[in-house]
């Protein structure tokens, strides 16, 4: 880890956090600090509470124990400095909205009243929207119906929407889910570039670390109600994941640097038998 700049406070500080949902303890005793400008992935098996972690940062889910500050404020209070991309939605073919309108909603979709036509603000708004669409390389298809572009293209426009108000923190829930492999790689590279160039903190939920491995500064690994946080090379290892799950887990490294997590139990992990005979390959 690089040393954080002295003048930048951490973006997220969680100490001893615990969340219960519908009577089930999702995770507890989670402590992590996310410094400003980091590119962070929240990993773990299905049901480990990855989305809950994002919702806690948004203030949509309250901690039952522990403390949490986001951008120096209580969760939920800083929502105008947070860009958020919920779990992937697909728009039906011919959905009656264009990409530019979708991005524009990110800018002023929360405002009441009618926009004043032919005012100066209108011009600035259009320029801002165009700049964001250009930033994610979505200009060629931004005026088409959102339902008529591919999943990867929709995702770029949604990222532009989340970025349009220049947030200090960008939260994404499974942004790579149900994209084809080239699109996954392209979106991962795009997010890494945004984090680097704009000094933005990015926290995303992923269930496959591989498309992100080369770019991440930090991972928060959730499993068995606990969490481990640190640089990916320290956390995504056989030793630490075995410790997290309490059952032997092996991280295999392919020659191209990709890693395969073997034997990771899917939560809720009720059976403790080992998956030695039929290793569960996690990922695509």
């Amino acid at each position, binding site marked *: 880890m690089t040393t954080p700049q002295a003048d930048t406070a951490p973006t997220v500080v969680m100490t001893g956090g615990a969340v219960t949902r519908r009577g089930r303890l999702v995770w507890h005793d989670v402590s992590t600090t996310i410094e400003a400008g980091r590119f962070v992935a929240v990993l773990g098996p299905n049901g480990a509470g990855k989305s809950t972690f994002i919702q806690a940062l*948004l203030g*949509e889910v309250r901690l039952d124990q522990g403390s949490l500050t986001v951008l120096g404020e209580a969760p939920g209070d800083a*929502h*105008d400095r*947070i860009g*958020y*991309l*919920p*779990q992937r*939605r*697909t728009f039906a*073919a011919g*959905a*009656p*909205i*264009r990409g530019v*309108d*979708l991005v524009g*909603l*990110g800018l*002023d*979709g*929360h*405002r*009441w*009243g*009618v*926009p004043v036509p032919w005012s100066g603000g209108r011009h600035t708004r259009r320029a801002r929207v165009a700049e964001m669409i250009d930033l994610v390389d979505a200009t060629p298809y931004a005026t088409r*119906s959102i339902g*008529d572009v*591919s*999943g*990867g293209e929709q995702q770029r426009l949604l990222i532009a*929407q*989340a970025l349009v108000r220049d947030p200090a923190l960008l939260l994404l829930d499974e942004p790579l889910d*149900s994209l*084809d492999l080239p699109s996954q790689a392209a979106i991962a590279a795009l997010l890494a570039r945004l984090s680097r160039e704009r000094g933005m903190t990015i926290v995303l939920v992923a269930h496959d670390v591989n498309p992100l491995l080369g770019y991440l500064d930090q991972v928060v690994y959730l499993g068995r109600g606990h969490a481990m946080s640190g640089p990916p090379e320290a956390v995504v290892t056989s030793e630490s994941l075995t410790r997290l799950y309490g059952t032997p887990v092996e991280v295999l490294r392919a020659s191209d640097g990709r890693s395969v997590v073997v034997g990771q139990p899917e939560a809720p992990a009720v059976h403790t038998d080992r998956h030695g005979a039929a290793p569960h390959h996690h990922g695509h």
Partner: protein
Amino acid sequence: MLGTLPGPLALASPHLSWNVVADVRDMFRYPFMVNAFRAGTAVAVLSAVVGWFMVLRRQAFVGHTLAIVGFPGAAAAAWLGAPPALGYFAACLLCALVIAALSGRGAGGDDRGEPAIIGLAQAAALATGYLFISLYHGNLEGTNALLFGSFLGVTTGQVVALTVVAVVCVAAVATIGRPLMFASIDPGTALARGIPVGALSVGFLLLLGAAAAGASQITGSLLVFALLVLPPATARRFTLRPGLGIVLAVALGLTVTWVGLTLAYYTTYPIGFWVTSLAFGLYVVVHAVHAVAHRGRHRPLPEVAP
């Protein structure tokens, strides 16, 4: 409204000449036609604006249910000796609140489910309306007017009421327009941005109830889609821009209403038939032209989600 008027068609049988200006002037000599045009204008504008959002939110089924519930409302009002307009608005708004209460159980406020319950409500509403009509000993003419529309006997009081409702509702849509659009397209993100998605949902149901009640008074309960769905759906073929689309939907709604009223005046066929046929005809023509114009332009196959 319920079949008490002898009707002007019996007094004088107007027919179209080649002089359109003279024909229109002729038509407007009758106060009942002036009132019909005023009421039709208010209703067409309101329906197009609210209908544009209804199409966006894919709530056509809910809109139809609200309109059908207006039928027993108006029939009950007639039975009790109250103005049918009051019955329409009371029943539609009440039904909007019931639907909101039934579907608002989730905190997210997604009200686009439960088609089975809505279907049952439609059947019950039609049956109840039929009961009220029998209790009223109304003639068949009255039932037809409530179900399939009428432009006869629009009172000045009704015109004032419809205009006030239209102005208030359009102003409300203008005020909540952008958050409503955000919440309609992308409720998850809108909620995270602090937009009250659930409250907007309830508010829009009330607006839809008002629009359905208004449209019912011209097209009848069963044909409200002529003004609620067809103009916005046709406008969508021309443009995906929100502002322009709403303006175009209003223009189309006004066109079919005005032309429909004129044709209903000069022919023996009813208003509900004319407005619906014109709106549907426009929709078909625009779609056909669009399909021909875009023939051969192949888009890449959409990505298939696993």
